[in-house]
């Protein structure tokens, strides 16, 4: 059963140094507030998992939280590079970063396999790509019926998954709307789950619906964090801050301007809740 707690408590109870931590949200509903709290609590040695690292992992990697990154597309969408990610991979700053690199299809299948309790995902993938040469976690099996070669990757099983959603009800059930990405699978694949939400409501949806809802008993902690996905967006609540995504390119390009920005906007902020 989920508990309603502060962001600071959620992160300190369920995120530990060395954990495998997934923060999902496909462009939409990226859990920035929670990522910043991890940075503030200086939790390190993490294996960070995310299909699209985006600015949040650029910040966490630049802040030194990550030992390893599992990902499938590491850019600033529509803008260009993630400079802190590149600095870590190309120049080991602020520390070396091990990478496990996949395609989107593989990551999506691996989360779904984790949610489904499978040890691995099997799919038609990686044909003719060099990625299997550099990632030993990509293997191939023969279909027992047709003999076709199929790709296999281990299921993703984060120690904790953190996502942001629009609404929770008072019983701690959570609803996702709009671009729902891989959030449901990432939560169900994890040992523990933290969900930050825009607000608590009395009723999540109409009777007899097929809405995307996770029951309370699949979640450990719910944190009310209005604006917790900014500068990404929350469908029905606020828009993506595209200008900030563009501005980030200049901020992150230089180690000093990055650290100044982090000091001013992350380390100084958020005591106890978002």
């Amino acid at each position, binding site marked *: 059963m989920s508990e309603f707690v502060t962001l600071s408590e959620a992160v300190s109870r369920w995120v530990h140094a060395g954990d495998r931590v997934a923060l999902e949200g*496909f*462009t*939409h509903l990226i859990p920035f507030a929670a990522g910043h709290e991890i940075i503030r609590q200086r939790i390190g040695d993490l294996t960070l998992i995310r*299909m*699209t690292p985006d600015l949040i992992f650029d910040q966490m990697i630049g802040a030194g939280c990550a030992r390893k990154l599992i*990902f*499938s*597309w*590491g*850019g600033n*969408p*529509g*803008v*260009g*590079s*993630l400079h802190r*990610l*590149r600095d870590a*991979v*190309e120049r080991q700053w602020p520390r070396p970063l091990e990478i496990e*690199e*996949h*395609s*989107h*299809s593989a990551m*999506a*299948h691996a*989360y*779904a396999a984790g949610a489904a309790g499978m040890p691995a995902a099997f*799919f*038609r*993938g*990686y*044909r*003719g*790509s*060099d*990625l299997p040469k*550099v990632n030993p976690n990509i293997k191939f099996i023969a279909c027992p019926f047709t003999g*076709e*070669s199929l790709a296999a990757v281990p299921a993703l099983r984060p120690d904790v998954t953190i996502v942001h959603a629009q609404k929770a009800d008072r019983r701690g059930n959570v609803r996702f709307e*709009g*671009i*729902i*990405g*891989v959030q*449901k*699978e990432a939560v169900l694949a994890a040992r523990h789950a933290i969900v930050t939400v825009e607000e608590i409501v009395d009723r999540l949806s109409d009777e007899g619906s097929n809405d*995307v809802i996770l029951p309370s008993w699949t979640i450990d902690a719910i944190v009310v964090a209005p604006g917790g996905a900014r500068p990404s*967006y929350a*469908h029905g609540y606020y*828009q*993506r801050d*595209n*200008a900030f*995504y*563009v501005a980030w390119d200049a901020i992150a390009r230089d180690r000093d301007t990055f650290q100044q920005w982090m000091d001013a906007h992350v380390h100084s902020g958020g005591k106890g809740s978002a």
Partner: protein
Amino acid sequence: MNASSGTYTATEMMTIAAARALTNRDVCFVGIGLPSAACNLARMTHAPDLALLYESGTLETRPRVLPLSIGDGELCETALTTVSVPEMFQYWLQGERITVGFLSGAQVDRFGNLNSTVIGDYAAPKVRLPGSGGATEIATGCQRIYLVMRHHPRTFVERLSFQTSLGHGPTGRERRALGVRTAGPVLLVTDLCVMTPYAETNEFEVVALHPGVTREQVIAATGWPVQFAERVDETPAPTSVELEALRDLHARTAAAHGAVVTE
């Protein structure tokens, strides 16, 4: 890359030439950037029923402005419905429901293989690029692949640093050997020309030059000894309808995003 040729830019010509390749019956998996502009231009001009899918799960989306990211709210708000990302890759892409996948990359070789992973050695890269994203399985899951890329010798290379996505393979013949049933890249539109694979070798050759572009320009911008088809046409210049639709789209997009948008 704003070399204007008369009253339109080379980028406008490229986007319009790419848009023309799409038909009203296509179901198209759209990458961000150049492909997105071309696909939406097609939908707003000659192919109003063109179904556009973005990997964020938006089915049959009809954005009024170009998205900055692959998961902009605009894509969801104007979609027939929005599915999860695993479903998008399982049922829609891998299920081979898509007729055209539009891709771009940091490097392309003569057989349409793409690199979007690293420049230099993988373990110690000179430049770390964003990586595959959806491209690896788009390249094999869609019935046909259209490529749109700016022509430059550092982009059109003799040899990829890393083969992220399969085109016709390192010798042009690998698709069948790998059991891949889809056609792969059948069109490459650049800011200089239109290329298609030569049937016997699957090597991309120039079949049309954009108005005012010379063979020498293409040769200078291509990192391999580029071939020209027996007959090389001139790409029809943008019509005023196409140009106006594209410029309106970009103007609406700039107004909506309140910032510069790279294309």
